[in-house]
């Protein structure tokens, strides 16, 4: 038997539309209509400023540990912008700009990050899952949701997010494989932010790109400049349209950078240099997008200033409202809720046991 060569796809595209100075490649410019562009800009800016505010709230002890998103706004906001409300988003935990875009309130984020489960309630009008902490595990839920969409013959799409570290997890590979086998309407969006806490992208995989992992599962993969919101948008739109039309899943690798800490409990000085961070700050997705919008005549310094002031006020109001709202939260009995549809008898006993102890302890406290 002869030794023959099997021809396989051996390349993936890299897409970049806005360069580091905000100069657009006019051939690739998707020429998105201006209201949508301005809404994307506002959400990016809101997410950045809110992220900064959350960091200061954390440092002041007014909220707990959280994972900042700064620098990655384009990489996830650009991906969800082509979605419609009936689509589903299955996030990891560092896609706050996308969550805001999908309708999550600033207040709920503050409340959640201050340790109240009330903040992760998903309102009825949003088809999204709450954030998922164990890395990569949520990918499979998007696959199952997409399976349901196909079964119900809708043309909706499920989109899921994860980081570069997640591509080392079994659930990532199993998810891509199942989506390929069942030809499911799901878009896998990798936020390749270069660092999984202290482990650099180069130590996650020997592969040259993360996008190429798609090829092994028979689905398209594309790498985009994740700090270029137009490139992310274009790649996501193409993937979403393909999925809606029955063309199956796509993997999008957004090359971006986590300019801040992994979480507020992390000290990046232990594993990376300031020079590297500075280099990426120069590729900031917001300034690039602002350059583009300015060139298109949609933005000017005055408009940015007005927007910044409105955003500052919106955040201030949200913080005040959330802190007011949290004064009424904290009923410990809530911990017994939502474990089961109906509380089992033994859990009722445990709850009663707590109530007995708790009311006695409170009475005692009043006496002291």
């Amino acid at each position, binding site marked *: 038997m002869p030794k023959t060569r099997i021809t396989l796809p051996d390349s993936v595209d890299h897409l970049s539309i806005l360069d580091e100075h905000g100069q657009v490649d006019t051939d690739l410019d998707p020429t998105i209509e201006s209201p949508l562009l301005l809404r994307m800009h506002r959400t990016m800016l809101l997410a950045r400023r809110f992220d900064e505010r959350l960091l200061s709230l954390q440092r002041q002890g007014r909220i707990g540990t959280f994972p900042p998103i700064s620098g990655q706004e384009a990489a996830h906001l650009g991906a969800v912008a082509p979605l419609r409300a009936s689509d589903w988003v299955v996030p990891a935990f560092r896609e706050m700009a996308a969550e805001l875009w999908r309708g999550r309130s600033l207040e709920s984020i503050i409340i959640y990050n201050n340790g109240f489960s009330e903040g992760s309630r998903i309102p009825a009008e949003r088809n999204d899952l709450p954030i998922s902490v164990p890395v990569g595990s949520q990918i499979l839920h998007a696959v199952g949701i997409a399976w349901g969409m196909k079964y119900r013959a809708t043309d909706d799409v499920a989109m899921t997010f994860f980081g570069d570290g997640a591509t080392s997890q079994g659930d990532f590979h199993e998810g891509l494989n199942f989506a390929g086998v069942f030809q499911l309407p799901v878009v896998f969006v990798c936020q390749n932010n270069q660092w999984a806490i202290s482990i650099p992208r180069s130590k996650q995989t020997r592969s040259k790109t993360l996008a190429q992992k798609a090829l092994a599962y028979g689905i398209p993969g594309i790498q985009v400049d994740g700090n270029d919101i137009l490139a992310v948008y274009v790649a996501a739109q193409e993937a979403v349209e393909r999925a809606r039309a029955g063309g199956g899943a796509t993997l999008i690798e957004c090359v971006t950078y986590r300019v801040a800490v992994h979480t507020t409990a992390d000290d990046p000085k232990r594993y990376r240099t300031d020079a590297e961070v500075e280099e990426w700050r120069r590729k900031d997705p917001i300034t690039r997008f602002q350059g583009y919008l300015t060139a298109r005549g949609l933005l000017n310094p005055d408009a940015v200033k007005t927007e910044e002031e409105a955003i500052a006020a919106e955040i201030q109001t949200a913080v005040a409202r959330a802190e007011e709202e949290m004064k009424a939260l904290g009923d410990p009995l809530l911990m017994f809720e*939502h474990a089961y549809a109906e509380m089992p008898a033994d859990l009722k006993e445990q709850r009663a046991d707590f109530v007995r102890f708790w009311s006695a302890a409170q009475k005692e406290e009043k006496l002291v």
Partner: protein
Amino acid sequence: MSKMTMVQALNLALRQEMTQDDRVIVLGEDVGVDGGVFRVTDGLIEAFGESRVVDTPLAESAIAGMSIGMAVYGLKPVCEMQFDGFSYYTLHQIEGHASRLRWRSQGRYQVPMVLRAPYGGGVRALEHHSESREAFWAHIPGLKMVIPSGPRNARALLVSAIRDPDPVIFYEPKAVYRAFREEVPEEEETLPIGRSQRVREGGDLTLIAYGAMMRPTLEAAEELKRRHGAEADVIDLLTISPLDDSLLVESARKTGRVAVVHEAPRSFRPVAEVVARLVEKAFYHLEAPVARVTGYDVVIPLFSREKHYLPGVARIVDAARNLLSAP
């Protein structure tokens, strides 16, 4: 009514639920064309098609994770693990998500999925094909862990599990799959999850068991009567978690002498919770320490030594006689 094996009864439950509810989807390895390695899903793909009886790639975590997504989306996936020994790949998905999404979304979403797995020894199988690890699942809040013991209650409990709004781990005693037949009614029958059953009435001692251990336990009860004149109250747990202790406590208060039988290893297993409940609620009625008739804290031996590991009639009778002779 017709006489059915447990395999046939489970097949009936799936068939009837799939017929009347198009949200019910069966998925897993070899469940379609092959009808499942134990034939529990036999014929379903012919009846319902590939869109509802899904042969998946070989990846247990993905089967569970995809089921979670399907359930959140509003379907009722019934996924099959080929053997309990392979189901631990799903532990992360079940612990981390299936059992928590109701809580995490504060009631917005639920995960009405069933994860079926054949468990237990006694079928002369390979390594990883004979374990009894129900405690893994019973340790997880938000989850229900159900183990039927015969064809009729298996059918009724599987119907209840499929209809349950919470995720249910459904362990099927593979030693019972074809061991005996029972009358199973064609018409709908359910059993409440979270409720144990008294299957034999007696006042001298209490035997508590479930799953494949019910048969040797009931045989032991008969032998105790025949040879030792003792009448055993026998309780079938049916649901391991959440544990219904009302019958256990009532029976222990009545007899004061209790043995718990399971094939899982002895330590940190369901027996520990049963004993804890009895200590809390029937302590002053106990006439003797509660006896544990269980597997041992070792890997279940390959089949040549399996019979020494698995509790059988003689060990149960032995434990019962010790209980009865306690002063």
